């Protein structure tokens, strides 16, 4: 239970990396907005893990693993950015924007609740 935030951070970092680096259906980002949301989620996961993981019990160097994956995700995102549309063309813009906004609000709330 106490290591759960660390596993969560790792998972979110991997999802962000996959969003930028793969074209697999369901993993690769279909729009810049999805990429940004994945990036924000990864950063929120890192913030929560940093605050809640028992770093006295495990090596703090483990922190660098999700950080490195997130950094790789940023590289992939920069690379893919020009090839992505701002919003998914196959979905109504309003739906995409509302979903992205809600996601961001939830992330901010989680960070505010557990980190600040």
């Amino acid at each position: 239970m106490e290591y759960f935030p660390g596993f969560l951070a790792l998972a979110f970092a991997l999802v962000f990396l996959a969003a930028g680096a793969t074209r697999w259906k369901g993993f690769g980002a279909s729009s810049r907005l999805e990429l940004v949301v994945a990036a924000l989620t990864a950063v929120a996961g890192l913030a929560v893990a940093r605050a809640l993981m028992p770093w006295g019990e495990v090596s703090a160097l483990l922190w660098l693993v999700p950080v490195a994956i997130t950094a790789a995700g940023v590289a992939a995102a920069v690379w893919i950015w020009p090839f992505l549309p701002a919003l998914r063309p196959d979905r109504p813009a309003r739906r995409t924007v509302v979903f992205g906004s809600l996601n961001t609000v939830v992330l901010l709330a989680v960070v505010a609740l557990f980190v600040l």
Partner: protein
Amino acid sequence: MTTNRRPSPRRTERPTRRPPRRAVVAAVAALAVFAAGALVIPRPPQLSAETSGDDRLVAEVRRLLDGEGAVRDRLSVAVIDGAEVRTAHFGATDDTEYEIGSVTKTVTGSLLADAIDRGEVTGSTPLGDLLDVGGSAAASITLDELATQSSGLPRLPLSAGMIVSAIVANFRASDPYRSTLADLESDARASAVGEKQFLYSNFGFALLGQALVAAAGADDYEALAAQRVFEPLGMRDSYAPSSRDGLRDTAVEGLTATGRTAAAWTMGADSPAGSTRSTLADMVRYARAQLDGTAPGVAATEPRADAGESRIGFAWLTSDDVTWHNGQTGGYASWVGFDRDADRAVVVVNGSSVSVDDLGLALMEAN
């Protein structure tokens, strides 16, 4: 898929080894993110290097804690051998305030023994005579059963609110206890009562403390503990607040086991189970009075019932020859124990929520 890739270099152009500008930007961005992450690498607090007190004891404590890797910061230790008191402080002084957590239960146990001496209650007084718990199963629980942790009550009231509060508090490092006396009584009325065997219960001790407040006609638990335990022992820096408003200016925040700042546990109506704040100097007075038998309600230390592999008095546990209790809140941990045959007592108070039980026991047994 969009196709706005850069056109391939024409054959007539001289091949270049320079990577595309986007690759450079991507690499720089990744490096920047990694560097930022490395800059904020978690640095769990370590035991303070600022020490004072008995040099040998300081070295002994360092040796005992060496290599454990746990979050530590402020820590104070006292070893009492007869008339001799040796102390060791790490980032603290005799007057640094700590939460002693469940060691508060020994104060509540002393209050029960003292109330029995005063004729206010007996060990067999039922809870229902003192608190408004109606005709519930909890009404027939005796004060003796509450004090020896054999009331059949659960560790905490099993209400949805308490469970959610405990989970949120665990992640937010906040005080999970916010009950009023009315809440506590309501939880008692609703609570199932299990087997009358040892089951450590904060809920039970909260009810016991509030019952003793009612029996004494005191304003609240803080006033009762001050009047009957802290003041007679000269423990001027000890108090048991039940709200943040009751915190003194000397109250400092402790650290969670992950190194976060933890909110003070003042615990509302649950304060008899763990809200006392004290200093090493005061806890030395407390432990010494238990050791030499001069503490108010010292009969609380006498073992009366089985508690797993130990025996239990009014809160005080006895394992082999050592009578002890520990405590842990969101930001603190503590351990107090004594051995009358060896004429030794040990107090450990710690400014992070990491157990000091092993340290306390090791110091009890150290030559």
